[in-house]
């Protein structure tokens, strides 16, 4: 029996100890009319060799592509040691560290992670992770409303990832929290600061500020943060963790710094794998720590004064407070955080800077070369980090299809999310792209444009 070690003798001895005649008898409290037991859609079991062949076949069918897609999930080099250590059974098959003395490995790692994440964001504290970037933004919105007390409205610019906005709406709507969107300036691709005036007289619990924004564009974060604080709203930063090696961290934005920083942790050593598992991060100012959702680890001592680590501030959590908890979240994304912590340790501050700077430089090079092609136009005039929007003079979906046929994924169609941005690609070239890769993309696009013209 797969993964069940019992011999017939074992079963007989165990049933004798219980005083039951058969295993079936152990289910005698289930009313007979409820028992079903017929499964029609579950195939017969496979051996490891058979499932291995099946999965290798499916993987090969999907194959490999040279990808210039970003839009919230980024291909970066992951050092070999990251997943070799992360998948050690002691990390992989342990659970939430409720028994601190038997979980010091996970607990210390999470404390180290909190330290790294807080510093990367320029914040005082960090939690031990949330599900993903999108749900982290939703949790930040709920946290801001709890903190603000009088307003149940959140301002979110349309330059925030469209799916993050959608997820946030799904989650906060239940609590009658209103999401108000701010349009962007079509010339700069930034939050239209002049459009903020219309909200001057209204009360909001928070303003969300993306950096870089969904278009890759850098926002005027200082002005936005100060504007939020000027009207007693919290400033919630949504940031890319790789970019923080180069960019001013949320804690230093404006006069007082953003209050909460969240984002998608995937760029820190997590494979793309069709969208998950990733992890969301959340860091904040000290005075907000008791409003933070999720697990938090503290350093303390044992009976004899030796340094140790434990889950702390559990009075915020569902398993203690039940209906009065800050969130219903229970598990976080522990294993992903394990990988991210090892990634950040291996790569260090200079390594992360170089990953960021090379991704920035590669995208600059890609955009510069593509812009020279007839029929390609950069959409926004502002500086960008490692993504940019490019408008084509021909139907962009056809161009993407012809690139795909050559093994190149040429970006995301922005029209899917912004109906006004016709035939516009969002492209990204991280440090994983060589000069030859970029050259290949440029040549393929030149041919595709020529063919459609």
């Amino acid at each position, binding site marked *: 029996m*797969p993964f*069940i070690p019992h011999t017939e003798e*074992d079963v007989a001895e165990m049933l004798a100890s219980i*005083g039951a005649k058969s295993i079936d008898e*152990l289910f005698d*409290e*289930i009313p007979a009319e409820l*028992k079903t037991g017929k*499964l029609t859609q*579950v195939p*017969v079991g496979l051996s490891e060799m058979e499932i*291995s062949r099946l999965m290798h076949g*499916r993987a090969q069918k*999907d*194959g*490999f*592509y040279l990808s210039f897609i970003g839009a*919230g*999930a980024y291909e970066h080099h992951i*050092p070999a*040691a990251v*997943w070799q250590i992360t998948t050690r059974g*002691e990390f992989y*098959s342990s*659970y*939430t560290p409720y028994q*601190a003395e*038997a979980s010091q490995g996970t607990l210390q790692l999470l404390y180290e992670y*909190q*330290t790294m994440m807080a*510093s990367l964001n320029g914040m005082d504290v960090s939690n031990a992770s949330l599900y993903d970037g*999108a*749900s982290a933004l939703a949790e930040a919105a709920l946290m801001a409303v709890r903190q603000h007390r009088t307003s149940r409205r959140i301002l979110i610019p349309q330059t925030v*990832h469209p799916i993050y906005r959608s997820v946030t709406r799904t*989650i906060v709507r*239940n*609590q*009658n929290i209103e999401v108000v969107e701010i349009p962007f300036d079509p010339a700069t691709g930034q939050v239209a600061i002049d459009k903020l005036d219309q909200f001057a007289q209204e009360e909001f619990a928070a303003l969300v500020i993306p950096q870089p924004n969904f278009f890759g564009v850098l926002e005027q*974060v200082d002005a936005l943060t100060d504007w939020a604080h000027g009207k007693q709203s919290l400033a919630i930063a949504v940031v890319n963790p790789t970019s923080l090696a180069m960019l001013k961290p949320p804690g230093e934005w404006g006069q007082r710094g953003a209050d909460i920083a969240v984002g998608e942790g995937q760029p820190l050593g997590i494979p*793309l794998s069709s*969208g998950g598992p990733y992890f969301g991060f959340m860091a904040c100012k000290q005075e907000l720590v008791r409003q933070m959702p999720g697990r938090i680890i503290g350093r*303390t*001592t044992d009976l004899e004064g030796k340094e*140790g680590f434990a*889950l702390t501030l559990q009075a915020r959590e569902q398993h203690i407070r*039940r*209906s009065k908890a800050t*969130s*219903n*979240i*229970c*598990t976080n*994304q522990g294993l992903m955080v394990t990988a991210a912590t*090892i990634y950040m340790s291996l*790569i*260090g*501050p200079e390594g992360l800077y170089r990953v960021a700077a090379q991704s920035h*430089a590669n995208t*600059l090079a890609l955009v510069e070369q593509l812009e020279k092609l007839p029929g390609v136009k950069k959409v926004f005039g502002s500086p960008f980090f490692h993504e940019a929007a490019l408008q084509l003079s021909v139907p962009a979906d056809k161009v*993407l299809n012809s690139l795909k046929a050559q093994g190149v994924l040429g970006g995301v169609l922005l029209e899917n999310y912004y109906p006004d941005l016709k035939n516009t690609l969002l492209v990204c070239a991280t440090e994983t792209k060589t000069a030859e890769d970029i050259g290949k993309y440029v040549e393929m696009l030149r041919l595709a444009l020529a063919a459609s013209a």
Partner: protein
Amino acid sequence: MLIFEHSRKNRRNYSQAPSTRPAKNNIPDNLKRKTAPLLPEVSEMDTVRHYTRLSQKNFSIDTEFYPLGSCTMKYNPRACNSLAMLPQFLSRHPLAPEDTGQGFLACMYELQEILKDVTGMSAVSLTSMAGAQGELIGITMIRAYHEARGDTERTEIIIPDAAHGTNPATAVMCGYKVIEIPTDRDGDVDMEALKAAVGPRTAGLMLTNPSTLGVFEKKVAEMSRIVHEAGGLLYYDGANLNAVLGKVKPGDMGFDVIHMNLHKTFSTPHGGGGPGAAPVGVADCLLPYLPIPIVAYEQGVYRWLTEKDRPQSIGRLSAHMGNAGVLLRAYIYVRLLGAEGMFRISEYATLNANYLMAELRKLGFEIAYPNRRASHEFIVTMKEIKDKTGVTAMNLAKRLLDKGFHAPTTYFPLLVPECLLIEPAETESKETLDRFVVAMKEILDEIATQPDMVKSAPHDMPLRKIDDVKAARELDLVWNPAG
């Protein structure tokens, strides 16, 4: 020693990152970072040693028996991990076109179909990233259902007192008032209290079956009738699905919406606290509200159903499609076990639990619900022992660590005093269970002869008992180089 304490300025791993700082940099000065983040500067070998050593300070399924009640700590087959980590699966971008991911999507579609079958539900969405998120989705759908009918007076969710803390926390997150109902002496929901609680304000009932008390709610069909007649819907918390898999389907018990914790029943790794995956299944009445994306199979092609296909959907809960890699592991696990393996999961999990319960009872431990069969877990209460000796459930738990066993769940469910919730899972052998019984016997003897030693456990772990009061009072959440 913390990783930061191994750090030396300008020590670098030259193979891991680009070899130089590129010349091109268009970031405006006012947006540049001025001081480097506090990341360690350590060699690859020191990093590997540090985290390998940390891993060795953990208990895990791979190293110890881990009978953590309500968590289903079963063996995580290695094939599930290695095949889910094939490079093509890992490198696939979530926004890559569907035709470049037909192999992956085939696995997801088949997993949806399999989960529908084993739960008896009409449709399944895989998007939920954890049990608590599955609950949030389920209750949000219940809300959408009532709202769509213009039934806006339903403001209450009924939850038994034995429920996981996530249940009431979820109901509140969804804007509902929680009505808690008690449990009767045998561990079943108090039916009179349920009847008194339902009414025109009832949006739904959240139920775990078998319950967290380790017993099957025998009157579930009647409960279903009572709640439905009052116009409410039934939510099934699938935390304990492992106990009845293949024996009884939540759909047949009358549930309208369920979540299943794949990190429990389908053996995906717990990973030190996530990532989980908790697909949600619905009956016909909630079909339109199911969260997107969902995988469809049409004319030989797999594709995502989105907002366009499902205009009434409650929407999205994750940036992409949830924890895809976890779902792949669950898919591989189901295919390894097959239809016959589904039944065996619940049969042997139940056998192990009832055997362990019988053996511990013979030692003199008090079983909280002695007249009931154990499901895949059961409760020992230490109340009498504590009254006589002062030794608590937590003391016993810590002493078990000394003996090389992870502790059972302690102090949950909240309604049983000094409780240990013990769940052995089907993958443990009789010898392991017998060794655990021996350890419990030794501790019972120690309680009689040297209770103070048990009270001050653990003794043989790398650390003595951790001071978590100090952890909360003198908050130290990040390392500060200045000390």
